[in-house]
C-alpha cells in the first residue's frame, strides 16, 4: 500500500471518523488515552479500527529517562497494540516520568553517549515487549542545553542503527526547535537517514504567550506554510511516507482538519518530483 495521510483522532470526532469515506484515511491516537479497563472510548476506537488503519503514538513511555520503561505502562501499551493491531507504534525522544512522578510533557536531556546507551536499551526493551519495532520522534526543544556529545540527527541515526527502530519525523518540531535553538531546519532534515523514516507529523505552532521569542509546539493551529514547504522538501528527498495532521487543542470541525489532511494526501499521491 502506498503511503497516505491520516488524522489525529479526537473523541468529539468519533462519529465523523466513522462516517468518513476519504481514500487512504487512517487515524492516530495516544495510547495513554485508552489505557482503561473498559468503556465507550475503547468501543468507539474498536468500531473505527474495523474500518481504518490505526497508529498508536505514545506520549508517556519516557524513553529518555535514566530508568527502565515502567513495566505497567509497557504492559498496557502491549495490550492495546495486541487488541488494535496498529500499523505503527511510535514514541518520543524525551522523558516525562522520573522517580514516580509523571510530568505530562516531553522533556529534554543532554545527548551524551551514556544517554545514547540508556535510551537504546530502553527502546530495545520496549521493542522486545511489544514484539515489533517502534518509531521514535524528534522533540520540540525550548532550552539551549549544553553538554551534548551528539547532534540530534546523529543521535537519532545511531538509535536506528543500534535498535532497528525507525524515525517519526515531526516537521513542525524541527521548525520550532530550529527557530528556538538557532539552527537550519533544512540541514537537520537533510541529515536524517531516509530509509529509517516511517512516518511524518505535521502540526501547528504559535508564539509564546509568555512574551519570549520562542515558538511553541501548541498543536492548536493549522500547519504553518513554512512547515508545508519543509514537508514538500522532505518527501521530495525521501519519497512519500504516512503523514499525520496532529491537532490537540482548539480543535475545529472534522472537515477543517480533513482539508489539511487532504492537502498532505495530495502531496503524497502526486507524481514524485524526482525520477
Amino acid at each position: 500500500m502506498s503511503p497516505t495521510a491520516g488524522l489525529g483522532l479526537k473523541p468529539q470526532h468519533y462519529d465523523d471518523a466513522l462516517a468518513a469515506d476519504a481514500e487512504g484515511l487512517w487515524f492516530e491516537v495516544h495510547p495513554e488515552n485508552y489505557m482503561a479497563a473498559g468503556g465507550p472510548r475503547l468501543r468507539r476506537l474498536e468500531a473505527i479500527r474495523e474500518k481504518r488503519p490505526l497508529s498508536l503514538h505514545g506520549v508517556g513511555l519516557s524513553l529518555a529517562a535514566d530508568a527502565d520503561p515502567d513495566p505497567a505502562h509497557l504492559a498496557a501499551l502491549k495490550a492495546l497494540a495486541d487488541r488494535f493491531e496498529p500499523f505503527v507504534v511510535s514514541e518520543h525522544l524525551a522523558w516525562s516520568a522520573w522517580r514516580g512522578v509523571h510530568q505530562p510533557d516531553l522533556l529534554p536531556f543532554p545527548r551524551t553517549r551514556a544517554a545514547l546507551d540508556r535510551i537504546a536499551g530502553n527502546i530495545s526493551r520496549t521493542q522486545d515487549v511489544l514484539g515489533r519495532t517502534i518509531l521514535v520522534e524528534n522533540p520540540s526543544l525550548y532550552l539551549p542545553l549544553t553538554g551534548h556529545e551528539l547532534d540530534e540527527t546523529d543521535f537519532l541515526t545511531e538509535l536506528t542503527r543500534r535498535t532497528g527502530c525507525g524515525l517519526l519525523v515531526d516537521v513542525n518540531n524541527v521548525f520550532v526547535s530550529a527557530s528556538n535553538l538557532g539552527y537550519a531546519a533544512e540541514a537537520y532534515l537533510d541529515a536524517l537517514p531516509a530509509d529509517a523514516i516511517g512516518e511524518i507529523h505535521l502540526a501547528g505552532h504559535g508564539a509564546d504567550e509568555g512574551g519570549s521569542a520562542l515558538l511553541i509546539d501548541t498543536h492548536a493551529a493549522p500547519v504553518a506554510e513554512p512547515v508545508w514547504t519543509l514537508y514538500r522538501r522532505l518527501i521530495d528527498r525521501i519519497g512519500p511516507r504516512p503523514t499525520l495532521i496532529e491537532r490537540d487543542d482548539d480543535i475545529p470541525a472534522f472537515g477543517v482538519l480533513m482539508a489539511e489532511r487532504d492537502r498532505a494526501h495530495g502531496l503524497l499521491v502526486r507524481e514524485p518530483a524526482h525520477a
Partner: protein
Amino acid sequence: MPELARFQDAFAAALAERTTAPIAGWLPDSAAELPGLAVYRNTIAKGCVDALAANLPTVARLVGDEWFTAAAALFARDSPPSSAALLAYGEAFPAWLEAFPPAGELPYLPAVAWMDWRWTTALFAPEAEPLAAEAFALAPEALAAARPRLHPSLAFAWFDDGTPSLWLAAREPDADDLELSPEPQGVLIVRPHDAVTARVLDRAGHAFLAAAHDGASLGEAIITAAEADPTTDLATLFAALIADGVFSGLDLGDSA
C-alpha cells in the same frame, strides 16, 4: 550517579523551584533566566489542569475557569500524576479540596468532586453485562438465598445533605439557580453499557446496596432495606435497581 539521572533530578528541581539555577551546569554561561523552562512548566501545568477539568467537570463548572485552574495547578504541585494515563488522574482531588481553605465557602465541593470522580471511574470501568429481570425469575427461597454480584462500574454513597441533587442538576446543560437541600440523600452511579447514569438514591436503596456490597444475600439485603425505611416499596426498589443495571451476576446459594 549517571549524568542523565543527575540531569533529571536537576530538571525536576528547576521545574519545582521555577528557576533554571538547578540546571545551570547544562546551560550556556549567562546570568539571565531562560524563558524555555517556563514553557515546559506551563505545558506540564496545562496537561494536569486539562486532565482534572475533564475528569471533574462539575467542579470546574461550579467554581468557574479561573478558580478551577488556580486550584488544579496547586493540587498538581502537591499531588502530581503518577501515571501517563491521565484519565485516572484526580482521585486525591476530593480529599485535597477538603483541606483547601478557599473551598470552605462551598462546603459541598469535595462531595461534588467525589461524585465527578466516581462518574469518570465508572466511564472507564471494566465491561460487564448487567442482569436483565429474567435472571431473577427464581423460586422465592432460591431468590432470597442468591448473592448478587454488583456491576464493576457501580459506585454509591450516602450524604448528610442534598449534594447528590445539586450535583445532578449542575451537570445539566442549562444549570442555574442551584439549591442545596438539607435533606440527606444517596447517589448511585453506574455504567451498565455505553453510558454512565446517575440518580438519587433513597435511604432504603442505599441500605440495600451497602448490604449487597458487603456480601449479603438478596433476602438479607431486602430486610436491611426494609429496616432502613419501613415505608419503602421493596418490589419497586428492587425493580429499579435491576433497571439501573447494578447487578452483573447472581451466585445461587447452594443450600443442598
